[in-house]
């Protein structure tokens, strides 16, 4: 293969964040920290006065929700940057964060549902918090399908940026829904409504899941760059084939 293709992205794939091995080590550390934080949360906190050990779901449901919000914040900022500067890397970062955020949102809903059945008595109800979260998930499922359907990279990036921004605007609505409207879901807990025995485990898990979020997003970002590169090579090959 001696194609003299102008590939600025060739080296860029390696410079996207920590170096090749570095990212993998970071991932190992993130997973280990998550295991440790889970152990801390599960082993050190007493059974809740009302719900017993059901309370433990807090250590996965809440970090998943918070970090989904963070992921969508990254989507919003990257999408704005793309619309402003038109640089491909911002589009690819938005796509990567959106994918991880979508998974975390689905996790939030699933784990919340598992908690809701024994606590509320129902797996699901159409209260404003649950409904707005479902809408958030659907918008980003739509975002990901949209990307898969548009072949032209520039157009894909522009449309995605618009949908990504719209979707991310849902985050404050989801967050405030429990204060703006009547819901079955409780309003946000604060350290004053949560005994310190539970706060430590929650914080440790929130940080651990944040590290996992960063790892997944960076990993996905690299894959996105590699995909983009393959796309460009294909285009180039097709053009050359036609020219000959």
């Amino acid at each position, binding site marked *: 293969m001696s194609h003299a293709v102008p590939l600025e992205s060739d080296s860029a794939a390696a410079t996207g964040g920590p170096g090749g091995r570095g990212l993998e080590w970071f991932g190992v550390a993130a997973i280990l920290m998550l295991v440790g934080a889970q152990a801390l949360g599960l082993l050190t906190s007493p059974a809740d006065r009302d*719900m017993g050990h059901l309370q433990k779901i807090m250590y996965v449901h809440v970090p998943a929700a918070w970090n989904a919000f963070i992921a969508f914040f990254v989507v919003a900022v990257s999408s704005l940057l793309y619309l402003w500067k038109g640089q491909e890397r911002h589009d690819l970062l938005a796509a990567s964060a959106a994918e991880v955020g979508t998974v975390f949102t689905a996790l939030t809903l699933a784990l919340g549902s598992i908690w809701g059945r024994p*606590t509320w*008595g129902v797996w699901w109800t159409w209260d*404003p918090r649950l409904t707005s979260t479902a809408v958030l998930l659907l918008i980003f499922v739509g975002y990901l399908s949209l990307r898969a359907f548009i072949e032209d990279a520039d157009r894909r990036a522009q449309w995605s940026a618009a949908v990504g921004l*719209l979707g991310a605007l849902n985050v404050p609505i989801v967050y405030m829904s429990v204060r*703006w409207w009547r819901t079955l879901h409780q309003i946000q807990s*604060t350290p004053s*409504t*949560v005994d310190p025995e539970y706060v430590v485990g929650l914080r440790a898990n929130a940080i651990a899941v944040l590290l996992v979020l960063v790892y997944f997003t960076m990993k996905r970002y690299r894959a996105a760059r590699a995909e983009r590169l393959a796309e460009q090579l294909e285009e180039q090959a097709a053009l050359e084939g036609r020219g000959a």
Partner: protein
Amino acid sequence: MSSMSGRRRSALVVGVAVVVGAFGFLLYGNIDSNVVFFLTPQELLARGPAAYDVPVRLGGLVQPGSVKWDPASLELRFAVMDTTGPAVAVQSSGAPPQMFRDGMGVVLEGRYRRDGVFQATELMVKHSNEYRKPEHGERPQEMYRSLMKGAGT
């Protein structure tokens, strides 16, 4: 690649305006009074005869001392109220969720019957945002077990 055509730019401006408008409506549009997840007992009673026999959600606090559970017929009776004010009698069937007890917030799905009893088809317990360890000598879920005593569950 970065320059947008005028048309695309104006489309973007319109899009942003729509989003900001929708957001403002959510914030200040007072849709609270039009679309509510549940009515409180006082709101239900204020509707008068219009409240009868229509599917509705009713949310309130379980009036302390009002809970009567019949393990034989699986019939649960209690009353819900706002923090103060008149209570609405509720009839439900089936074992209540584990968290159900006096003073807890509940959301019910069902119909307000003409005899003044709310017939609930779904009973949901609203959990507060508090997470507390048991106080000395207190055992979690004890209240539930005592409530469910003799029910074979």
